[in-house]
């Protein structure tokens, strides 16, 4: 697609030759039926941030309730509904579509220099599926929110009187939105790579998105069939999971976790992908161990199918299966460790600029390390017997989901914000927010490790008095983090109106999206300015240009030589 015409970048004097994708067709109707991947990405972003704030409100309600033992705000059933919806909204609505659909949709075609994704109408259809799923979840919230936990374990989910069917229906539909997004991205990466960009000249962001998409396509259907069987079981009493009719509740757990473990890798792989790009851009230095990071992404994707049993060590799974799954779980720890070591090695002898996205990236490395290491506790069989379904697990998965995937989402959002909306956010406020979120997050979830190992069970409305002090520290941390998140989103939205005009390349990125004007036109590049594939992660000929207010390539920079290996 990208013809290799070398062009010099004329600055952006006066009005640009083509209107940007935001202004090309105004009006609500044009946005609703748009096929442009950037607009769909922005619509996803709006949907996801609102569901994130909604999920956050549920989280803060749960934390306030737990400030003291006994009932403060809500009774036990409402508490159960609160944590169920917090789980369902955050997992199905925010974090699974978050990085792949919102930011992936926006960045994938531009990084490839392509005008759009492979199947634009399928892309819009996925967004409508996401909206239907969100509507169904809200319907469940309005009627009588499901109180089964986001895992919908039977036989409780088939015998409780709350509105489980809309919630399960919503998750079912959201599954298909995720499948079609994954399918779209795999075909785009296969068929729309520019000339000269082979598999090992691709930015690492695409490796992450590719392995996530593989997981989305091959794992999510099992969630679809599981939730379909759950719906039919609850309404039609077919008896496949119902112990009285011969069904087996542990079989439901096998079905559910066969999807849900690859799902946690759907959440973390795009985060790792973006982080690889972020760290190398802000270290102004080539990545260390490109092949190892690329292979570990694919390794994680394939190993994630083998390990789902470690969620079921104490749930009636046999001893043999427990042993097999525990052994396989440790193989999954290795690729993550390789990635972290390679990122730290990238920081060695670099030229690090601690701007907001980089602060989020460094926070990601530290929080993901804690998250990964606490996973080792839960992988060891007899330690997991004690720690399973305790607050230790709650802290572990919040470190990996919130601490890693959400922080990476914020980092990537700040990284691509100038490109998406052509505005620069306030750097100082962004940095302060990043640090406060890091502090707030740790105050919230570090005490929960101790709570868990001391014997506080998960999903508890009331707890023994000796755990009170830990819960109070955690609640304070939760409010600090909540407020800072709102401030950081406010900072971004404020920049839409008052922000400084963004240059094409504010951070000095070497990948192709920084050659596009920000915000890019409808087909990502001006007709006369087709993108040139420069060697990625080679920052030698990028220098800061005052007039442009951003990084510019030296005019003589030669495009990528054939078979260049970053």
């Amino acid at each position, binding site marked *: 697609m990208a013809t290799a015409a070398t062009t010099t970048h004329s600055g952006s004097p006066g009005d640009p030759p083509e209107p940007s994708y935001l202004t090309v067709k105004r009006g609500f109707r044009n946005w609703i039926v748009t096929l442009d991947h950037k607009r769909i990405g922005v619509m996803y972003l709006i949907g996801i941030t609102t569901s994130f704030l909604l999920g956050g409100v549920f989280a803060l309600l749960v934390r306030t309730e737990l400030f003291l033992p006994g009932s403060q705000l809500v009774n036990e059933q409402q508490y159960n509904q609160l944590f169920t919806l917090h789980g369902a909204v955050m997992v199905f609505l925010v974090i699974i579509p978050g990085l792949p659909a919102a930011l992936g949709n926006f960045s994938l075609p531009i990084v490839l220099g392509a005008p759009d994704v492979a199947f634009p109408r399928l892309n819009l259809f996925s967004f409508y599926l996401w909206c239907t799923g969100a509507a169904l979840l809200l319907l469940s919230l309005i009627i009588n929110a499901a109180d089964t936990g986001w895992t919908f374990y039977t036989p409780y989910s088939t015998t409780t009187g709350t509105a489980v069917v809309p919630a399960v229906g919503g998750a079912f539909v959201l599954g298909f939105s995720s499948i079609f997004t994954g399918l779209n991205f795999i075909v785009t990466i296969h068929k729309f790579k520019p000339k000269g960009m082979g598999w090992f000249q691709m930015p690492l962001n695409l490796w992450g998105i590719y392995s996530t998409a593989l997981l989305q396509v091959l794992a999510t259907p099992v969630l679809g069939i599981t939730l379909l069987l759950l719906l039919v079981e609850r309404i039609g009493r077919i008896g496949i999971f119902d112990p009285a009719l011969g069904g087996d509740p542990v079989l439901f757990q096998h079905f559910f976790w066969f999807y849900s473990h690859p799902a946690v890798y759907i959440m973390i792989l795009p985060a790792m992908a973006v982080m690889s790009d972020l760290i190398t851009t802000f270290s102004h230095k080539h990545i260390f161990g490109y092949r190892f990071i690329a292979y570990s992404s694919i390794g994680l994707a394939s190993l994630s199918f083998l390990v789902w049993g470690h969620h079921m060590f104490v749930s009636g799974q046999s*001893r043999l299966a427990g042993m097999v799954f525990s052994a396989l779980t440790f193989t999954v720890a290795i690729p993550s*460790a390789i990635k972290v070591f390679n990122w730290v090695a990238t920081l060695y002898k670099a030229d690090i600029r601690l701007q907001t996205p980089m602060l989020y990236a460094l926070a990601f490395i530290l929080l993901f390390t804690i998250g990964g*290491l606490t996973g*080792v*506790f839960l992988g060891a069989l007899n330690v997991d017997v004690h720690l399973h379904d305790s607050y230790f697990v709650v802290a572990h998965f919040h470190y990996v989901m919130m601490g890693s995937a959400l922080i990476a989402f914020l980092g990537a959002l700040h990284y691509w914000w100038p490109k998406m909306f052509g505005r620069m956010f306030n750097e100082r406020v962004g940095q302060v927010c990043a640090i406060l979120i890091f502090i707030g997050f740790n105050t919230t979830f570090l005490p929960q490790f101790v709570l868990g190992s001391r014997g506080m069970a998960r999903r508890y409305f009331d*707890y023994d008095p000796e755990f009170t002090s830990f819960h109070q520290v955690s609640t304070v941390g939760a409010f600090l983090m909540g407020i800072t998140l709102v401030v950081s989103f406010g900072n971004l939205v404020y920049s839409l109106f008052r922000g400084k005009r963004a240059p094409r390349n504010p951070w000095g990125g070497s990948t192709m999206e920084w050659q596009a004007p920000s915000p890019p036109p409808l087909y990502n590049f001006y007709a006369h300015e087709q993108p040139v594939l420069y060697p990625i992660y080679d920052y030698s000929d990028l220098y800061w240009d005052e007039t442009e207010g951003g990084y510019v390539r030296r005019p003589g920079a030669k495009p990528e030589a054939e078979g260049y290996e970053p």
Partner: protein
Amino acid sequence: MLQYLLTFVVLAQPASGPGAEAEKPATSEAQPADKAAGDKPAAGAAGETKPGDDKAAAPAAATGNPCDKNAPRPTNKPKKTLPPVGPRTDVQSENYWMPVANSDMAEHVDGLFIAILAISIFCFVGITIAVVYFAWKYRSRPGHRAPESSSHNDTLEITWTIIPSIVCVIIFLLGWKGFVDLNTPPKHAYEITIVAEKWKWSYKYPNGWVDENLHVPVGEPVRLIMRSKDVLHSFWVPSFRVKQDVIPNRYTKIWFEAKYPGVYRQYCAEYCGDRHSFMKSLVVVHPPGGFKRYMEEAEAALLDMPPVELGEYLYAARGCNQCHSVDGSAKTGPSWKGIFGETHATSAGQVKVDENYIRESILDPTAKVRTGFNAVMPTFKGQLKDEQIDGLITYIKCLK
């Protein structure tokens, strides 16, 4: 702890009174309880001892119709009560991370936990120092250029792949060894049945006593056979580092051996509905001998009711209802309705159904088998005490 011992001393007097015969089995707790697969179920803790003041209970027959369940209780005999459970003794623990460890397996788990914790802190501190140091040393400042550095180094990559793999394999093996111990209870463990239902645990002891707290002897392996009546629950005692889900359509088993007496907390760990956080109980680990006394108390309390009611309870508790009906319909065994006093043909000729025949067919069922039924009834010799047999006889007598 003192108050706890006091209540034992006061109540324990009658048990060691004149009634205790010599043939009480030596290690009473160790008797395997009503074990599955047909081996001889023993009578649990209490042997043939009869609480001293039981003679007073006999007069129920003297005061009129024995079948009258709500006959007035003889006033001079107060209702037997069991000692209340003391306060928890596991609030403080010397290990910052874990509650007090109360079994060898728990100590093994603590050891592995601390080992992994050390490795994790070492790795985390190493990475944090590296990140902070690099971020500071190579921070971008005027005149600072990123010095030349290689873009990959295979030996380094191989080392930081091999080392974590070896550490992981070691942790896995240790974890697995502990898990295998957790899943292989010793042969002679004392068995307690646990039934979990929505928001309540019931612990059923071999002598028929059902309690809402788990009472276990110290130093003895105890095996728990658990099942649920409705949704998933999970039996978790943090001090024993033991957890196992309780599933509606099957038995799940777990075992532990308490090392120190005391009262420990027990939780439900698998989400099971509204009052999930209130579905908890206490594990009372009795000092040596204390458990046997508690079981005797429970046994005495269990027998302290009019014979006809005791007979009715045993009809259901000991599974007689599986084969004998009370509404006249024949099942695997003959119905008990109205058979008292009639003569029936049996394998040993015509027999009048009276107290002796009933007692004999309970203790030696195959002696005189009713014609038309096959001899499949298991014997109850040694399982039922005399008052229990009298209770059953009175109950059959009252079944008109």
